[in-house]
Structure formats: structure tokens, C-alpha cells
């Protein structure tokens, strides 16, 4: 593991409500600079909650969390991370360009600087020609690419992704997986990626963190030693299948095959 920790969580617990559903219990996690870490687990294992604790969108009940060596709160105020949700969460009244520029406007970038950066971002997510389109004119996959461009526009050191491709069809998801890896290689950010797809987690990550539900705990951490850069052939590599099996067994050992109530 890298010595330069981007995220360092110590004994994080989170209980919701008074009587208390325990969403997270005693989570220790360290994520080094440049890593691509996936959080995987059954519904209700608290993986999205953990992501929100890192982003200071949810406050932990106990434990300590550092992001870029600062408190998560300080890191949020410093705009140290970009976030992508399962829904693209684009603002309907803004064009593609203006959606991507939203965080730049909040950071008081000049118009010229914003325009230049939006053009770079459109290149990065391959959406040239769609500058003036409104979100409703884009397919789901394109909307999610705009959302990724918006999250990366201000070059945050950390990218938080909460099941970003969960609502997309399998073909689009695989294409966006490949694109995300290309972008990750290009910008060198650290990525924390929540998913419930084993294949996606293995294909994308340098490490897969497996969680179990009620209470949400980390049951195992599996390093993914597939060669970089990963390609479509990676998915046919025997090692890929071994790792998929390993993650699946870790999930089952954590009780993932128990009956799950709807989240």
C-alpha cells in the first residue's frame, strides 16, 4: 500500500436513528494515492454510506476519517473530491457545457478558463459536438459521462463514485468501464467506486473491498493483480475469472447469499 494515504478511516461506525440501524461498524480502511478501490457488498451493507462518510455528506457516529490528511469536513470545504451518483444528477436547465462548468462557476473561475477546461473535459469523455445539448437530449450513458466530466472538471485528487453505471444496460456499462479506466490512467486521480457487480469491481480495481450487511463490516480486501492497462481481453483472462470467483466466495462467506430485504 502507498504510504501517501488519500483516505484513512479508523474505527468508523454509523448508526441511523435513535433505536439504531447499524449501517457501519468499526470500519478501518486506507486508500493510497492513485489507487482504484471498489466497495462491494449486498444491499444494506453500508457501502454507499461509507462513501458518503468519506465525502462528509454523512457524519459518522464514531471513529476518525482523514481525507488528504485533513478531516473529511475540511476536505469537503476545500473541494478535494468530485462525486458521481447512480443517477447522473444533471441540472435539467443547463446545457452539457454549463453542467460541466457548474463546479467551476462555484470556484469563481473566469469565463475563459472555464471554457478552456470544459473543452478539455468534453475531449476526455468524448462528448464533442454535444456542448449545447440539454440533458433530456442525451442517452443515459452520455448523461453519466457528463456527470463524470463535471466531477473531474476541477481536478480533484479523489473521485467518489456511487454505483455510477448501475442503471445502465450491460453493453453501455462495459464501454463506460473501459472509458473510466482510460480516464483514470490519464488524470491519475484516486477513485473509490461503489458497485454491486463483481465483474465490474474486478475489471476496474486495484483492490476490491468486500463488505457484509447488518452491521456493515469489511470482511475481506482482495488485491487485483491484473495487468494494466486493462482491455476487453482482460475480461477473458483466466486470472480475471479466478479473481471473480475469489470475490464471489468472499461475498458468500460474508453472508451475502442470505435473504435480503429490499434496500
Amino acid at each position: 500500500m502507498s504510504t501517501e494515504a488519500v483516505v484513512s478511516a479508523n474505527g468508523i461506525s454509523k448508526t441511523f436513528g435513535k433505536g439504531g440501524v447499524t449501517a457501519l461498524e468499526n470500519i478501518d480502511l486506507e486508500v493510497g494515492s492513485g489507487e482504484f478501490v471498489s466497495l462491494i457488498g449486498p444491499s444494506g451493507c453500508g457501502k454507499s454510506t461509507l462513501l458518503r462518510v468519506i465525502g462528509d455528506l454523512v457524519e459518522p457516529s464514531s471513529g476518525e476519517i482523514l481525507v488528504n490528511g485533513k478531516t473529511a469536513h475540511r476536505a469537503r470545504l476545500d473541494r478535494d473530491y468530485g462525486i458521481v451518483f447512480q443517477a447522473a444528477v444533471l441540472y435539467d436547465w443547463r446545457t452539457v457545457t454549463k453542467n460541466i462548468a457548474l463546479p467551476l462557476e462555484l470556484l469563481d473561475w473566469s469565463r475563459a478558463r472555464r471554457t478552456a477546461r470544459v473543452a478539455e473535459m468534453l475531449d476526455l469523455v468524448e462528448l464533442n459536438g454535444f456542448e449545447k445539448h440539454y440533458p433530456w437530449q442525451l442517452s443515459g450513458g452520455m448523461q453519466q459521462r457528463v456527470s463524470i466530466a463535471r466531477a473531474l472538471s476541477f481536478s480533484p485528487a479523489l473521485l467518489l463514485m456511487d454505483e455510477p453505471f448501475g442503471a445502465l444496460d450491460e453493453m453501455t456499462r462495459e464501454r463506460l468501464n473501459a472509458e473510466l479506466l482510460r480516464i483514470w490512467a490519464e488524470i491519475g486521480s484516486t477513485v473509490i467506486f461503489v458497485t454491486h457487480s463483481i465483474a465490474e469491481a474486478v475489471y476496474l480495481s486495484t483492490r476490491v473491498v468486500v463488505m457484509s450487511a447488518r452491521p456493515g463490516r469489511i470482511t475481506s480486501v482482495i488485491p487485483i493483480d491484473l495487468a494494466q492497462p486493462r482491455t476487453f481481453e482482460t475480461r477473458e483472462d483466466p486470472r480475471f475469472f479466478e479473481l471473480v470467483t475469489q470475490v464471489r466466495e468472499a461475498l458468500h462467506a460474508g453472508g451475502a447469499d442470505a435473504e435480503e430485504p429490499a434496500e
Partner: protein
Amino acid sequence: MSTIAQPVAERSGTDHVRKWAPALVVFGIGLAAWQWLLPVLGVERYLLPPLSDVLQAFWDNRSELLNAGWITFKEAFGGFLLGCSVAFLLALVLARWRPFGNALMPYMIAANAVPIVAFAPITNAWFGTLSPWSKIVIAAVLCFFPVLVNTLRGLTSVRPESLELMRSYAAPQRVVFARLRIPTSLPFVFTALKIASVLAMIGAVVGDYFGGSTEALGVQIVSSVSLAQYETAWAAILVASLIGIAFYATVALAERLVLSWHPSIRAGVE
């Protein structure tokens, strides 16, 4: 990249004709029935005079009626501006400080159910029968509640993830309102403004009924009826209706321009 949906193509001229033809036919049948069917059915003139007589009365009194319409429209528009802007600003305050909003909203919703035109005689006492302000205030109060309730609903119906995104940018409340809550509320606001444009005309005309400048439209309707000049009364009602429709249409047009990004507009659905 071929999955892009293209904006709905402009309707061609013949499509327009096809779309509007049934409505125009119904309109024509209605006018014809008014003119020729009512006398055949033996409807008395004081109940509803034939269309041609109403149009003749309008033509004979056109300068008074148009002047009266303008006076009453100014009352309605003044009330619309006053009521809608106060309601919008109050909605911002109530959405920003929710406990305040939660404490006041039940009363606002209850007040919305009060028949406000019942207060018209009272506002005459407050502001003077001849003052336009007694009518402006009635129109304003009528506009106030739908705009307040709808705007507040719009300001608070923001998706949680949109708010989380703003929070991830550490955006202050001022920015959350300007960039997220107010744009989200606009479809609700315009729905309320369309309702308010109709209510403002009702408020102004009914305000006139309880007394006002003899030049105002509502006053002319009352005095024409009391003099048994039913054609003139109907001509005045016609003027009031046309002003009301034009007012509503103007607000609806503004909505189309401002909300060009909104689903109901882009699909050409009303």
C-alpha cells in the same frame, strides 16, 4: 453516438391546421348557436342577447369600454405584480428557514381556502371606494396564496442527490437557492402565475362591483345591468374575458420562453 434524441421538429403549417381545426369548428358552432339558436329557443333578450347585438353594443360604446378595460386591467396587473412578488419572496424565506415555514404553512393553506373576494367591501372601506388600491389589494391577495404554496412546493421538491452535489461543492445557501432551488421551482411558479393571472382579473372586476371609479369595467357592468342595458353589460363582459385571456396567454408565452428546457414544453404538451 446515434442514441441522441433530436428535438421535436417544428410542426408544419398543415399540421397546425389539423390540430386546431376541430377547436375552431366548435368555436364557430358556439357563436352561430348564440346568434341564431337562442332566439329560436325563445331565450329572452335580458337573459342573453344575440351575439350581433352584443357586438353592436361594443361598437357603439367602444371608447368607454376599452378605456374601462384598461383601467380594470391596470388594477388587475398591479395586484398581480404585488401579490406574486410578495408571495415569491415570502416563499424564499419560508424555504430557507424551514421551522418558520412549518409553523406558518398550515395557516397559509387554510387562508388559501378562504373566499377572498368576500373581503372586497372591506378593502373599499380601508382604501376608499374610488381608490384603485382597494381593487389592487383584492387582486394581490387572490394571487398571493397559490403563488406562495406552489413556489414553496417547487423550492422544496429538489432531488436529495442534487442537494448532495451542492453540499459536495460546499456551496453556501445563497448559491443553492440561485443555482438549484429557484430553477427547480420555476415550473411550479409558472403554473401558479397562470392561475394568478386569471384570479387577478376576477379580483379587479369583483372589486369594481362593490363600487369604484365609474370608468372601471366592473362598475360599468353593474350600472348597465341596473339600467337594463344588457347588450352593453355583455359587451363589457366580453372585454373583460378578452383581457383575461390575453393576460393568461402572455404569462403562458413567458413560460414557454423561460422553461424551454422543461419536459412539458419541449414535447409540445400543455
